[in-house]
C-alpha cells in the first residue's frame, strides 16, 4: 500500500488504541478481575501495541525517506511529510476544523519515544500501584478532624487516566492543525489534573492538581490569543498545504501555515503572510477613518482599503513591515501556551507541586507527555517565530534553567529535586531553541525524556522501598537496592552529560547538552554583546546539574544509613519495576548514539531530516530588534566551536561532580556550614525564589480580598433585599391563608358536607343485592323506552 495511505492508518491505530483501552476501562474497569487488576493488562497491552505500531511506522518511513537523503537537500526544501485530513468537523467560512494529521520524522520520533517511555511506565505502574488493589488507608491525607481516610482502591482508574493521557499526547503529536493541537493540549491538561489529583483526599494533592490546571489556563489564554492571530492572519489552522474544492468544482492546494510564513517562492525565508499584511492595513486604515484626522490621510486610507485585493501593493506594504506585529503576537501567544505547559518561568510553579501525584505519573508528565508537549509545539511552530520571539524564548529559557537549577540545590525531597531538574532541563531546551538551535533543543527533548523518566522511576522505586520522599532520612541504600542504584547512577551520568570530550563516546545527555552549549557559543560569536550571558548561564546551569544530581545520588545511595528504621525496611523493587528501569537505563545511555552499520542512522539524523525548511541558515535581525543575528546551525558543529563547548561543558560538569563528591560522597565538608554562611541566600533558594509568596501577595491575596468584599456586599445588600422580599411575601401569604380558611375552606367544607349527606341518603339504594340491581336495570330500560317514545315516535317502532 502507498505509504501516504498506510502511515496515517498505522499511526491512527497506534493513537486510538489507548483510547480503546480507556473506553474499555471506563465501562468495564471495576469488573476486570478483582478490584480491576486486569485494567493494567488492558492498558499496557494497548500502549505496547501502539509502541510496536509506532516503530513499524518508523521503519516504513525509513524505507521511503532514508536519513542520508535529507542531508544533501539540507534545509533548502520542506522536509518530507505526509499530511491530510481524516474527517472534517465543519467549515465556517475560510476556517476548516478537521481531524487531520501531519506526519514527518519528528512526529514519528515523538510517537516512538512517547509510546516506548509510556510502555515502560505502564509496566512499572502495574507494580508500583498495587497498593490500590485493596482498600487504602491514606496515611498522608488525614481529614480535617485528623482521622485517617479509608477508601476503596482505584487501581483501574489510574490506568484509565494513563491511557487517556497517552491518547491525548499522541493526538497532540499527530495533529495536522493547530486547532486539533489545542484540543489535545487541553486534554493533556485534564489528564494531568486527574492524575496529579489522583490521591485527591490529600489536601496537598488536590491543591497541586488545581494549581497545575489553573496555571496552565494562564498559558492557554495566551495560546488562544496566538490562535486567533494565526486564524486572522492566515485563515487556516493547518500546518501543511491542504486540498480545497473551489466553487467551480476544481481541486486546488491551499497553503498551510508553514507555506504561508515561509513560502517556497521566498526560498523558505520568513515572510509576513498576505493575510496578516492585509489585516494590518485594514485595521490601520479603519483607525484613520474612524479618527478622521485630516482629509488627505482619509483619502489614503480609503484608497488602501480599495486596494486590498490588488496584489502589487502587497509588496509595498510588506516592505513597510505592516503585519509583522501580528506575526510576533502569534508567535508569542503560541509560546505563551508552551510556557505554561513546559513550566517555564514564571509559570513553572505548578510542576514541582505536581510531585503530589503518584511517581509514575510524575515520570510520564516530566518525560514523555505534558512538558514535552510544550517543547514539541515550539519545535513544530518554529518556522513561524520571528527573531524577536526567539529572543524572548531564549531569555525565558535561560532564566528558567538558572532559577530551577539553584532551587534544586536546596531541595531535600527527592522528587522535588528531580522536578526542578526537569524545569531546568526544559529551560535548556527553550534556550537552545531560542538561540536558533532547533536540532539541539529537540535532541535534548528526546534524551531528556529517556533519562528523566529513568530518574523518576528510580526515585519511585526508592520511595516505594523507603516509604518517604525525604533524602535526609535515606542513605546507603545501594546495598539494599543495587539495581535501582546502578540505573540511577546511569541516569545521573546521562543528565550530567558525561562523556569523553573530543570523541563521540558518551551518555545521551553528552550529545544533547554539548550541542546546546555549542549553540550558545556560536550565538555568542554572532552577538558579542548579548551572547555571553546566555553562554555562562547555560554553563553554570550545567555545572549545577551535575552537582545536584550527584548530591541526590550520594544522599540516597552512598554512605551510611541515616535512618535505621527506613534502611531496615528498604528492599529492592519487584521485577515489574526494575525491568523498565533497566530498559530505560540502556536508552539513557545509548539513546543519542547512531545505530552502527546503518550509515549514520540515529536520533540526530532523524531529527535533522525533520528540521523545518529555512531555519538552518539563521537570520540576521528582526524588524523590531535588528541587532540580533541567529547563527546558522552548522556553525555550532564547526570543529573548533564544538571542541570548545565540549571541554567547557565537561569541565563544569566535572567541577559539579567533584563538589558533590566532596560534600556528600566523602563528606569531607559539611553542607550545613555553607548554609550557615549564607543564610539569606539559602532561605531565598529554599523558598524557591519566593515565587509562591510573590503570587500569593500579588494575585491570591488581592483576589481573596476582593472576594471578601463582594461577599460582604452580597450579605449586606443583596441578602437583605431577598430576605425583605421573602418577609413581604410571607405577610401576603398570611393574609391569603386567613382568606383561605375563612372563605374558601368553608365553602369547600359546606360542599363536602352536602355531598356527604347526599351520599348517606343514597347509600341506602346500594343494597349490595345483585338481583335488585338487575331489577333496577330493567326498570331503567323500560323507563328509557317510555321516555324515548315521548320524543321520538318511532322509538317503539310504531
Amino acid at each position: 500500500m502507498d505509504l501516504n495511505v498506510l502511515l496515517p492508518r498505522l499511526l491512527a491505530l497506534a493513537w486510538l488504541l489507548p483510547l480503546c483501552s480507556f473506553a474499555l476501562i471506563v465501562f468495564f474497569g471495576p469488573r476486570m478481575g478483582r478490584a480491576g487488576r486486569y485494567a493494567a493488562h488492558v492498558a499496557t497491552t494497548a500502549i505496547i501495541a501502539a509502541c510496536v505500531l509506532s516503530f513499524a511506522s518508523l521503519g516504513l518511513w525509513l524505507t521511503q525517506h532514508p536519513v542520508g537523503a535529507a542531508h544533501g537537500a539540507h534545509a533548502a526544501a520542506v522536509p518530507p511529510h505526509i499530511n491530510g485530513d481524516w474527517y472534517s468537523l465543519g467549515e465556517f467560512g475560510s476556517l476548516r476544523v478537521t481531524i487531520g494529521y501531519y506526519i514527518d520524522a519528528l512526529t514519528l520520533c515523538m510517537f516512538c519515544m512517547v509510546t516506548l517511555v509510556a510502555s515502560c511506565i505502564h509496566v512499572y505502574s502495574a507494580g508500583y500501584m498495587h497498593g490500590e488493589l485493596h482498600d487504602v488507608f491514606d496515611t498522608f491525607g488525614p481529614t480535617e478532624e485528623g482521622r485517617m481516610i479509608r477508601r476503596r482502591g482505584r487501581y483501574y482508574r489510574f490506568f484509565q487516566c494513563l491511557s487517556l493521557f497517552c491518547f491525548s499526547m499522541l493526538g497532540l503529536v499527530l495533529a495536522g492543525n493547530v486547532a486539533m493541537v489545542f484540543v489535545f493540549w487541553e486534554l493533556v491538561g485534564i489528564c494531568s489534573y486527574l492524575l496529579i489529583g489522583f490521591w485527591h483526599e490529600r489536601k496537598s494533592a488536590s491543591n497541586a492538581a488545581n494549581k497545575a490546571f489553573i496555571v496552565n489556563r494562564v498559558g492557554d489564554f495566551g495560546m488562544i490569543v496566538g490562535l486567533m492571530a494565526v486564524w486572522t492572519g492566515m485563515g487556516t489552522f493547518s500546518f501543511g498545504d491542504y486540498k480545497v474544492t473551489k466553487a467551480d468544482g476544481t481541486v486546488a492546494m491551499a497553503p498551510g501555515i508553514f507555506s504561508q510564513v515561509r513560502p517556497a517562492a521566498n526560498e523558505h525565508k520568513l515572510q509576513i503572510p498576505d493575510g496578516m499584511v492585509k489585516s494590518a492595513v485594514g485595521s490601520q486604515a479603519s483607525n484613520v477613518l474612524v479618527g478622521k484626522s485630516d482629509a488627505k490621510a482619509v483619502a489614503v486610507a480609503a484608497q488602501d482599503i480599495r486596494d486590498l485585493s490588488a496584489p502589487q501593493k502587497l509588496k509595498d506594504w510588506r516592505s513597510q513591515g505592516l503585519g509583522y506585529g501580528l506575526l510576533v503576537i502569534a508567535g508569542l501567544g503560541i509560546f505563551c501556551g508552551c510556557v505554561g505547559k513546559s513550566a517555564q518561568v514564571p509559570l513553572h510553579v505548578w510542576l514541582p507541586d505536581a510531585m503530589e501525584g503518584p511517581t509514575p505519573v510524575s515520570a510520564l508528565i516530566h518525560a514523555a507527555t505534558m512538558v514535552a508537549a510544550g517543547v514539541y509545539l515550539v519545535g513544530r511552530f518554529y518556522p513561524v517565530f520571528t527573531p524577536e520571539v526567539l529572543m524572548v524564548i531564549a531569555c525565558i529559557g535561560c532564566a528558567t534553567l538558572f532559577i530551577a537549577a539553584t532551587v534544586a540545590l536546596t531541595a531535600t525531597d527527592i522528587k522535588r529535586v528531580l522536578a526542578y531538574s526537569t524545569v531546568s532541563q526544559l529551560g535548556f531546551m527553550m534556550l537552545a531553541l531560542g538561540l536558533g538551535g532547533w536540532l539541539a533543543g529537540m535532541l535534548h527533548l528526546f534524551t531528556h525524556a529517556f533519562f528523566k523518566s529513568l530518574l523518576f522511576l528510580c526515585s519511585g522505586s526508592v520511595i516505594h522501598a523507603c516509604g518517604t520522599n525525604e533524602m535526609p532520612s535515606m542513605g546507603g541504600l545501594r546495598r539494599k537496592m543495587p539495581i535501582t542504584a546502578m540505573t540511577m547512577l546511569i541516569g545521573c551520568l546521562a543528565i550530567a552529560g558525561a562523556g569523553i570530550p573530543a570523541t563521540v563516546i558518551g551518555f545521551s545527555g553528552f550529545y544533547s547538552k554539548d550541542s546546546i552549549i555549542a549553540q550558545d557559543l556560536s550565538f555568542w560569536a554572532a552577538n558579542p554583546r548579548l551572547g555571553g550571558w546566555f553562554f555562562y548561564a547555560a554553563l553554570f546551569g550545567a555545572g549545577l546539574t551535575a552537582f545536584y544530581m550527584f548530591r541526590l545520588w550520594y544522599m540516597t545511595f552512598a554512605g551510611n544509613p541515616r535512618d535505621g528504621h527506613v534502611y531496615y525496611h528498604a528492599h529492592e523493587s519487584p521485577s515489574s519495576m526494575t525491568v523498565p528501569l533497566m530498559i530505560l537505563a540502556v536508552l539513557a545511555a545509548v539513546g543519542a548514539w547512531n545505530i552502527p552499520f546503518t550509515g549514520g542512522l540515529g536520533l540526530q539524523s532523524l531529527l535533522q531530516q525533520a528540521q523545518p525548511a529555512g531555519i538552518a541558515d539563521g537570520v540576521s535581525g528582526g524588524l523590531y530588534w535588528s541587532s540580533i543575528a541567529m547563527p546558522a546551525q552548522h556553525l555550532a558543529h564547526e570543529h573548533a566551536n564544538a571542541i570548545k563547548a565540549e571541554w567547557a561543558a565537561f569541565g563544569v560538569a566535572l567541577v559539579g561532580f567533584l563538589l558533590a563528591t566532596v560534600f556528600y560522597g566523602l563528606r569531607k565538608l559539611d553542607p550545613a556550614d555553607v548554609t550557615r554562611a549564607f543564610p539569606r541566600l539559602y532561605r531565598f533558594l529554599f523558598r524557591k525564589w519566593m515565587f509562591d509568596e510573590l503570587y500569593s501577595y500579588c494575585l491570591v491575596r488581592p483576589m481573596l480580598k476582593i472576594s471578601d468584599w463582594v461577599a460582604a456586599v452580597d450579605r449586606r445588600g443583596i441578602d437583605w433585599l431577598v430576605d425583605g422580599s421573602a418577609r413581604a411575601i410571607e405577610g401576603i401569604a398570611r393574609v391569603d391563608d386567613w382568606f383561605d380558611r375563612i372563605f374558601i375552606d368553608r365553602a369547600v367544607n359546606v360542599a363536602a358536607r352536602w355531598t356527604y349527606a347526599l351520599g348517606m341518603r343514597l347509600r341506602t339504594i346500594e343494597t349490595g343485592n345483585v338481583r335488585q340491581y338487575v331489577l333496577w336495570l330493567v326498570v331503567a330500560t323500560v323507563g328509557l323506552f317510555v321516555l324515548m317514545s315521548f320524543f321520538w315516535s318511532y322509538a317503539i317502532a310504531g
Partner: protein
Amino acid sequence: MGPINWQTCFFFLMAAIACGAAIAVVISSNIVRMACWLVLSLAAVAGLFFLTGAEFLGAVQLMVYVGGTMVLLIFGVMLTARGPFVSMKIGAAQWVVAVIAAGALLTVLLQAAFGTFGQTQGKPIAAAGSSRELAASGNDVADAASYSPLGLGLIGVRIDRLAERDHVLRGGMSGYLLPFEIISVHLVVVLVGAAYLARARRRMVPRHWRGGEQPSGVED
C-alpha cells in the same frame, strides 16, 4: 286453506319449546332441572337458527352452549348438591316485583316486536308457499348462510355485498379480522384469568367461620 308451510310449522314448534323451556327455567327451583330446561331452550333456539338458514351457527350454538351449560350443570351439582342449597326460594313480594318489572319490559319489547309486523316481508317465499319455490329460496338461504361466506366475511370478502353499488359498502366496510383477533386474544386472557381465579387455594376457610375462632397465637 293452502298447503302447509313447513317452515312456519317448525318455527312454531321450536318457538314453543324455546319459550316454554325458558319459562320453565324461571319457574323451576331445582338447579339441575333449571339446567335441563335451559339446555332444551337453547337447543330449540339452535333449531330456530337452522330455520333462519344459519346452519353453522346452529351447530356452534349446540356445541358451545350445550357444552357450556353442561359445565354449569356440573358446577350446580358440585356446589349445591348439599340439601339446603338445592332450592333457594325467594319471597312472594320479590316475585311480584320481579314479575311486574319483567312484565313491563316484555310489554315494551312486544310492542317493538309487533311494530315490525307486516313491515318487512321481503322475500316472496311467504306468498308463494309452493314447495319448489320454498326449496329454491331455501337454497338461496343456504348459499348465503353456509360457513364459507361466513369465513370469507371474517377476512373482509363479503359474498352478500357483491351487488352493492358503493364499493365501500360492497367490501362490507371492512372485514371482521381485527375483531376476530381481539376475540381470540380475549378468549386466551379469559381462560388464563379463569384458571387463575379458580385455582386451588391452600386454605379455604369461609369468612364467617373465620370470624368465630381466633388463632390462639395472636394474643401472645
